[in-house]
C-alpha cells in the first residue's frame, strides 16, 4: 500500500509541476522585472531539478514546514481549516443519500413494474441527467424568491447578535440546500443499484426456499435477501470515504461554501504546488483506506470471503 502511495505521489508531482504555468507572475504585469521573478523562483526552490523538488516537498511535509505559495500559510493548517466544512456538507449529503436511496431501491424492487416503480425510474433518470449546477441555481433562486432569506455561504455573514439556537438553525438552513442537491444525484444512482441488486438476489434459490419455509415476506426481504443485495453497495461505500473530503468543486463554488473543493481548484489555478500535492496525497491515502475498509466489510457481510 505504501509503494502504491509513493507511486501515486511521484506521478502526481510530475504531472502537476510539469504542466505549463508558474506560480509567480500569473498575470502580465509590466511593472514586474524578470530579475525579480527569477529570484522568487529561487526562493520557492523552483529552479532546482524536479527530483530534488519532490524530496524537498516530502521533507517539508513531514517536518511541518510546508507553506502555501499563495498566502504563505502552513499547508496543513489551510487544509484542516476547510476539511471539516467539506466533511460536514458531504456527511449530511451522504446520510440523506443512504437513508433515502436504499429504502427507495428496495421499495422499487418489491413492487417491480408498478406505477411507483416506473415513477422511481423516471425520477432517477431525471436526477442523474439534470446538471447539478442548473438545479442549484433553480433551487437558490426559488428559495430566495420564496423565503427572502439568504442561502449562500456556510452561515449568515453577520451572526454576532444570534443566540445559540439561532446559530444552529442558521447553520442548518445553510446546510440544507447544498446537501440536498449533492444528494439528489447520488440518490438517483444508488437507488438504481439497490433495486437491481435486490432483484437479482430475490430470484435466487435460497430466497425461494425461505419463502417455501413459510417465513413472512417482510423477513424474507429484510433478513435474507437484503444482506446479499447490499454487497455491491459496500463497494460504493468504499469509494465514498475519499469523496467525503474530496469536496464538490461546483457546489462549493455556487454556494460559496468554504471547503476543500474550492481550495484545491484555486490552488491548481494558482499553481500552488504544495497545496495541490498535499490534497492529492491525502485523497490517495483515503482512497486506499476506503478500499481497505470495504474489503473488511465484505468479510463481515459475506462469510464466504475470507482473508488469509
Amino acid at each position, binding site marked *: 500500500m505504501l509503494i502504491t502511495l509513493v507511486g501515486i505521489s511521484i506521478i502526481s508531482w510530475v504531472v502537476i509541476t510539469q*504542466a*505549463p*504555468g*508558474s506560480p*509567480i*507572475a*500569473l498575470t*502580465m*504585469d*509590466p*511593472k*514586474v*522585472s*524578470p*530579475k*525579480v*521573478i527569477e*529570484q*522568487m523562483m529561487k*526562493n*520557492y526552490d523552483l529552479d532546482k531539478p524536479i527530483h530534488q523538488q519532490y524530496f524537498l516537498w516530502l521533507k517539508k511535509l513531514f517536518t511541518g514546514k510546508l*507553506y502555501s505559495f*499563495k*498566502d*504563505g*500559510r*502552513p499547508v496543513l493548517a*489551510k487544509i484542516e*481549516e*476547510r476539511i471539516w466544512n467539506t466533511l460536514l456538507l458531504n456527511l449530511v449529503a451522504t446520510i440523506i443519500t443512504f437513508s433515502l436511496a436504499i429504502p427507495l431501491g428496495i421499495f422499487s424492487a418489491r413492487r417491480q413494474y408498478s406505477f411507483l416503480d416506473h415513477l422511481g425510474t423516471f425520477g432517477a433518470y431525471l436526477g442523474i441527467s439534470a446538471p447539478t449546477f442548473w438545479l442549484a*441555481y433553480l433551487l*437558490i*433562486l426559488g428559495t*430566495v424568491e420564496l423565503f*427572502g432569506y*439568504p442561502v*449562500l*455561504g*456556510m452561515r449568515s*455573514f*453577520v451572526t454576532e447578535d444570534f443566540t445559540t439556537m439561532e446559530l444552529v438553525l442558521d447553520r442548518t438552513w445553510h446546510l440544507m440546500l447544498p446537501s440536498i442537491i449533492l444528494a439528489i444525484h447520488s440518490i438517483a444512482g444508488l437507488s438504481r443499484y439497490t433495486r437491481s441488486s435486490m432483484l437479482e438476489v430475490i430470484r435466487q434459490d435460497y430466497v425461494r426456499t425461505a419463502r417455501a419455509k413459510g417465513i413472512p415476506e417482510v423477513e424474507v426481504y429484510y433478513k435474507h435477501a437484503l444482506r446479499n443485495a447490499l454487497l455491491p453497495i459496500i463497494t460504493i461505500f468504499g469509494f465514498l470515504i475519499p469523496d467525503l473530503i474530496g469536496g464538490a468543486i461546483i457546489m462549493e*463554488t*455556487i454556494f*460559496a461554501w*468554504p*471547503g476543500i473543493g*474550492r*481550495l484545491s481548484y*484555486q490552488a491548481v489555478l494558482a*499553481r500552488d504546488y504544495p497545496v495541490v500535492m498535499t490534497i492529492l496525497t491525502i485523497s490517495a491515502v483515503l482512497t486506499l483506506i476506503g478500499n481497505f475498509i470495504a474489503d473488511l466489510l465484505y468479510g463481515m457481510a459475506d462469510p464466504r470471503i475470507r482473508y488469509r
Partner: protein
Amino acid sequence: MKVNQLVESSIGDASFLNPILAQDSASSEINGLVFNGLIKYDRNLQNFVGELAESWKIKEGSEPEITFFLRKGVLWHDGKEFTAEDVKFTYDKIMDEKTNTVRRSDYELVKKAEILDPYTFKVTYRQPFSPGLGTWSMGIIPKHLLEKGDINTAQFNRKPIGTGPFKFVEWVSDEKIVVEANPRYFQGKPYLDRIIYRIIPDSSLSEMELLTRGIDLYGVSPFQFQRMKEVPFLNVYSQPSLGYTYIGYNLQNPLFQDKRVRQALTYAINREEIVQYVLNGLGTVANGPFPPQLWYSNPHVKPLPYDPAKARQLLAEAGWRDTDGDGILKKDGKPFSFKLITNSGNDTRRDVGVLAQRAFRELGIDVKLELYEWSVFLKNFINPKAFDACILGWSLSPDPDDYQIWHSSQIDKGFNFISYRNPEVDRLWEEGRREYDIEKRKATYWKINELMAEDQPYTFLFVPLSISALQKKFVLVEKDSNDKEIFRPIKMEKAGLMYDLIRWYVPGAPALEK
C-alpha cells in the same frame, strides 16, 4: 434593519494582508483600508497628496533625492507611534531577496534610503526617475511587529496592524473579512462603522445577493448594466477603466513590418461596432496606449476611423494585390495569411477575434483564429514571440511610464513582445521617465501618443468602462461653511468610486453595539 456598514463582495479570497507581499486585487483592496502609504494619488490620478508624509521635497539632478517629512503623532492600530524607522524597514524588507515580493522591481533605481530623523526620510535615486515618486504610495508596515521571523509566513499577514482608516477585525478563510472604523485615524474617524468583505465565488449569485441587499457594492459586467439601471434602490456608476484591449502584431514577421499594412488593418476594423456588440456600448474606442480620461492622453489624437476603402488603398500601395482573383491578397506570389491567437476563457477577446477575422477577410486577408489556455498561450507563443498577431489587454497603473511595454530595450526580456522599435519613441519614453515636471511630461506623452497613432504597432481597440452598482442608502458627508455636516450623493472620481470612502455614511442607521 439599516446598519451603518458597507458589505462588498469578491470572487476570490485575499492572500496576504500585507501590502508588500500582496499581488491580488482582493488583498490590495483590504490593504488599502488598513494601511497607508507615504503619499497617494489625488482624485484625478494626476498629482499626489500626502498620507503618512505631510509633505515632500524633490531635489532634481543626476542623482535626484526625495525627502519625505512625516506626519507626527500617527499611531499604529496597536497604539505604538509610526516613525521613519517603519518606512526604512518597509523599504529594506522589499529589497531583501528573501522576501517573496514582486514590488522589488519598483525600487531597482533607488541608490540609498536613509532616516534623517524620526520624522524625515530621504531616498536617493541612481538616475532621474519620476515614476519613482508614485511607488511611495506603497503601504507602510510596522517594524516592531515584523522585525523577527520570516515575513513570508508571518502570522501578521493574516491579522494585520496598520495605520489606516479601518482596523482589522477578523478573517474567516473563503468566507469573509471584516474591518471596523479606526477611531484614532489621523484624518478623522470614518463615518461608517465597519466594512465586510464577503467572498462569493459565483458572480451571478453575487448579483442575486445585491438584489436581495446582501451586498451593497458590486462590479457590474456590461451585459448586466441595463437591468441594474432599472433597479430602484441602486445607483449605477461608470467611467473608463485603466486599461485597454488590443490586437498586437509581431513586428518580426515581415507581413507586419510595413506601417501602411498595420494602418490598413486598423482602418479595416469597425471598432465602434465592436464596442456596441461586444461591450453593449459600454466602452470607448482607444486612440493609443493611454486611458483617455487621464492627463497624459492626447485628446487631439483621434482614433483612425472605420474605412475599408482606405484600408484597401493602403494595402495596394504596400504591394498587396489580388492577382489571381481568388479573393486573397498576394505579394511576390505569397498570400496574405496569418494566425490570430488569444487566450481561452475570455469571451470578450474571442468575440473581438471573430469580428476582426471577418473584417480582415473582407479585405482579402486570410486569418485563422486560435484560442489557447493562458499558461500555454504565454509559454508557447507570447514569451518565445512565436505568433503572428494576438489579442490581449493591458491593465495599467496611473503613471504613464509604459517603458517596459514599448521601449526597444524591453524586446529581449521585457514586455515588448511584439518587438516594436522606433528610435524617436524610445527617446521620448526615456525622456518621460527622467522628467519630474508634470507639464513637460505631458508634452512628451502627448507626442508619444501621436507617433504611435501613426505607427499602429497595435490596433488599439477599446477602453472598457468600469461599472459599479451601489445601494442608494449611502451618502457622502461634507462639512459646509459653518462646519455643519451635510449629505451629498456619492460621486465617481477618476481615482474610483471609493476615493472618499472614509466620508461614506448610512443616514438613520443606529450605531453598532460593541
